[in-house]
């Protein structure tokens, strides 16, 4: 009850205050803007409803980029973590590069990826995957390294090979950490998709936001942003659900 009621109450209070401030014109006056540039929640809701098919069309494009990019980031991130766990040499050689991969400003990198990979889904997937890869790889590697060394000893005396110890002991014990990383990645993924679309696209919510911004369609911009937030929340929720189904021993 408190879990849902409290955030709902805070949200309702914020939206209510916004509604009053925007519809009375106080917010626009404060910002020194024309009132149509500062939409109220009610106006955003009606923009959401009026543009539902347009939003759905563009959302399906962006959702595809987010889900596929996330899946690639997850696979590469976990694979990278396992490789770095198995080889100290690789860990020493590649860990700094892993950090560097995250220091790349996506805004700068996205247009370059568009030059390399074209205007299709390719550069978007690359950016979303790049954004998701880092938290997943780092969290999984930490999880793998946090395994109880006594458990590994026990597995060795039970004739386990290195691979068996990895799959039967280290991977399961790293799963909660992996899910933590994946949840962070789920929240970053839509941001990556938007940057990818801004660098060059003909559809998608990011593309839509860019066009609406040029046409001062602020209510529809907010509506598109709301859909993006909903996608991030849904992905986050799905991951939490999956974790509860898979990590049953905690």
């Amino acid at each position, binding site marked *: 009850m408190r879990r849902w009621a409290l955030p709902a109450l805070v949200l309702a209070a914020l939206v209510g205050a916004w509604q009053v401030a925007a519809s009375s014109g106080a917010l626009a006056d404060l910002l020194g803007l024309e009132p149509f540039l500062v939409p109220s929640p009610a106006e955003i809701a009606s923009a959401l409803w009026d543009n539902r098919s347009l939003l759905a069309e563009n959302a399906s494009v962006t959702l595809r980029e987010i889900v596929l990019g996330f899946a690639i980031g997850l696979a590469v991130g976990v694979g990278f973590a396992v490789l770095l766990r198995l080889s100290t040499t690789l860990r020493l050689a590649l860990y700094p590069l892993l950090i560097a991969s995250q220091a790349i400003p996506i805004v700068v990198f996205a247009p370059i990826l568009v030059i390399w990979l074209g205007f299709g889904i390719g550069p978007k997937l690359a950016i979303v995957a790049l954004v998701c890869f880092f938290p997943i790889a780092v969290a999984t590697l930490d999880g793998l390294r946090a395994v109880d060394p006594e458990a590994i000893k026990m597995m*060795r005396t039970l*004739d386990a090979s290195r691979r068996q110890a990895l799959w*039967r002991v280290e991977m*399961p014990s790293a799963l909660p950490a992996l899910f933590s990383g994946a949840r962070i990645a789920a929240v970053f993924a839509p941001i990556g998709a938007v940057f990818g679309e801004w660098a060059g696209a003909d559809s998608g919510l990011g593309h839509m936001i860019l066009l609406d911004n040029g046409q001062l369609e602020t209510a529809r911009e907010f509506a598109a942003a709301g859909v993006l937030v909903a996608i991030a929340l849904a992905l986050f929720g799905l991951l939490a659900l999956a974790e509860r189904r898979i990590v049953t021993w905690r």
Partner: protein
Amino acid sequence: MSAETGQFAAEAPSPASGAAVSVRGLTHRYGGLTAIEGLDLEAPAGAVLGIVGPSGCGKSTLLELIAGLQAPSGGAVAVERRGAAADRLARCAFMPQRDMLLPWLSALDNAALALRNRGVGRRAARERAGALFERFGLAGFERARPAELSGGMRQRVAFLRTLVAGKPVLALDEPFASLDAITRAEMQAWLAGALAADPRTVVLVSHDVEEALYLADRVAVLSARPARLVEQLSAPAPRAPDRDAAVTSAAFVAARERAMAALHRGSR
């Protein structure tokens, strides 16, 4: 390696040739720290060798050296006359201090781990490990997760896992240290019964003199670090069916006092 030869060997220890576990002039160092120095020990096939010593004296290190988890800095360790660490590892099953049951596996799958590691299929491994559950008082708990089991039951599953590995030598590192006194006494009697039914060569490390004297045929008392042999004594009634009677007999009390005196000498 029947029960008879085990007991016979315990009464008259044969020279190194017959020993399942032999430790000769063993020295082990960590950096500048000497953990074990010039240690000689021997466990005949089928016998239980108890090792007691003050805490931090290197008992667990000794067990890991025997089980092939580490290579010694000096001297020789052999299990069934094989000295290489990999050969020792292949012949020893190690039961760590904490039960180390994997929380995501059922009791049955934990017990079957060694079989699965050796490539036995899931169903066959479960069948083979499951056959022992009844005898170990675990019937009905095959599908329970470790978190659902009591401390004593977890320890039994951990021992079962060690036994199912099917190795000639068991290395037990304070197997009951985490249990309360009553459960510990019950588990000692239970282990005595389990070893009578399925004799193995056992090296048992304990900080509890009574536990070692009850379960072992011979008890080696080690000194504080660096671990050296202070005294070796024979147990008066190894694994007697009536544990309570055995540990209160005059011979047992005398042996315990001797062992305690040796411990005190070695701690100085």
